[in-house]
């Protein structure tokens, strides 16, 4: 992978921040966009914009073609069986909420159990907490080891005949640790439970094959994989999506709304995935995401992961030269994506991020939407996080370490 060449595709990387060249190490939050994605969105609006489905004019048909071809492209990217298994949503959060509010609200009741891990992002905890208050089921939390790795024994021991769904991040958004979701999916299915995989941090970085994982649901976001914000995907097995009720009501998600005097309206639902896509969807978002997928496929996902692993290994080694820096998470870099959580002795995470910002380096500070992991496992008030993607370089890591060394001297 020619990183210097591909950097030319990202206009934002040419800018300066506070008088320094931009170094963008906040990729776990969102990624930058190549001109191919920006151009695809512009082209859609400049030449093909219309509302999708149920019209006969040229622009609507073109827009529909773009939208549905985008769905097909992404379907192949995650190796789903068919495009009807792929629902466009706003992002991972909405995808998990969709499952909680449709499948969860209708299938779970008092006495049932939902199993999640303590390393989950809030978006894989809060929807279940909300629905559990309405339905009275129990949420069980599987432990995480001190090094941030999933405690598989604890997770597996918490399954019972009461467990209806297990929810697990494929890759932790705090530590970058890759979880063996295939293993957990098998245990879930052995207990008659479903498996929901939060793929927000995996789909952008590693090859994800939903059939191989045997995931019942997979959620991910477009903006974390070079695509635009406001578009994401819920993958669901066809037989599940067919039995689930709609998420929201409106146009597109209905087959018929038949009115009869005295009885009101009789409504029948559209087929999946449109049953879950009420109203005008984010058409240009889908187009942009498909272009992002095309870009990643051209690079090769193995190359993407290999680049990130090499950069992470290099960064971890170099960061250890800084005496006040503590790096969290497993030392086994073979099971990690390009995320490094760390702290600097005697400084708050926000101070560290502000100092880096002063030098044009963007890192994230705080809980990273994973407060339980910080409080219960890492025992931290907050942490800093550097996260890498395809356009990051060793030279950028060197500059970052220079700044950390300056912080070391404070």
């Amino acid at each position, binding site marked *: 992978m020619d990183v210097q060449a591909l950097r030319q595709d990202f206009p934002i990387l040419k800018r300066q921040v*506070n008088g320094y060249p931009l170094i963008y190490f906040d990729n776990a939050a969102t990624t930058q966009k190549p001109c191919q994605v920006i151009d695809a969105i512009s082209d859609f609006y400049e030449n093909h914009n219309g509302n999708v489905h149920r019209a006969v004019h040229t622009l609507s048909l073109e827009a529909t073609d773009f939208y549905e071809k985008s769905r097909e492209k992404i379907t192949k990217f995650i190796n789903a069986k068919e495009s009807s298994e792929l629902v466009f949503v706003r992002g991972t959060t909405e995808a998990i909420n969709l499952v909680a509010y449709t499948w969860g609200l209708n299938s779970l009741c008092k006495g049932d159990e939902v199993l999640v891990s303590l390393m989950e992002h809030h978006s894989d905890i809060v929807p279940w907490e909300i629905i559990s208050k309405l339905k009275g089921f129990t949420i069980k939390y599987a432990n995480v080891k001190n090094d941030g790795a999933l405690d598989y024994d604890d997770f597996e021991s918490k399954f019972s005949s009461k467990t209806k769904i297990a929810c697990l991040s494929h890759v932790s958004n705090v530590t970058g640790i890759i979880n063996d979701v295939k293993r957990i999916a098998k245990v879930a299915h052995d207990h008659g439970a479903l498996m929901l995989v939060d793929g927000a941090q995996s789909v952008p970085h590693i090859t994800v094959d939903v059939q191989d994982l045997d995931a019942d649901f997979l959620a991910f976001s477009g903006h974390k994989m070079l695509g635009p914000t406001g578009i994401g995907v819920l993958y669901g097995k066809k037989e599940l999506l067919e039995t689930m009720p709609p998420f929201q009501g409106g146009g597109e998600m209905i087959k018929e709304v038949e009115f009869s005097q005295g009885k009101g309206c009789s409504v029948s639902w559209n087929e999946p995935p449109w049953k879950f896509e009420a109203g005008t969807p984010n058409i240009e978002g889908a187009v942009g995401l498909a272009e992002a997928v095309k870009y990643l496929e051209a690079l090769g996902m193995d190359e993407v992961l290999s680049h990130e692993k090499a950069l992470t290994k290099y960064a971890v080694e170099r960061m250890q030269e800084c005496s006040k820096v503590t790096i969290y998470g497993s030392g086994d870099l073979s099971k990690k994506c390009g995320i490094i959580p760390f702290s600097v002795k005697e400084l*708050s*995470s*926000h*101070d560290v991020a*502000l*100092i880096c*910002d*002063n030098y044009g380096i963007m890192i994230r*500070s*705080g*809980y*990273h*939407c994973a407060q339980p992991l*910080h*409080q219960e496992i890492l025992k931290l*008030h*907050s942490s800093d996080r550097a996260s890498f993607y395809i356009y990051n370089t060793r030279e950028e890591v060197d500059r970052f370490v220079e700044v950390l060394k*300056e912080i070391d001297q*404070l």
Partner: protein
Amino acid sequence: MATIEDYVARIEGTCGEEKDVIVVFKYEKKDEAIAQILKKAQLKNAIAGIIFELTFQDTSFRLYSSGKAIFRSIKNREELNQILKSILL
């Protein structure tokens, strides 16, 4: 008459247990804001010319040359507004 809105672009609560508050000064007014703050606040430490540890009216905070300040132990927005008003105007 000048207001704090003339200088402040945004106030953000930070994520994490610390509950710090970040004040972001408007880019075009940041140098003026920094000069004003350095004139009124008590300087405890200046680090590499980019971080200034300051105290003003018993409130400790850090000011960054990029035009951001991080305040700790602020009870509420009113208290912060009062401090900003006193130090900026």
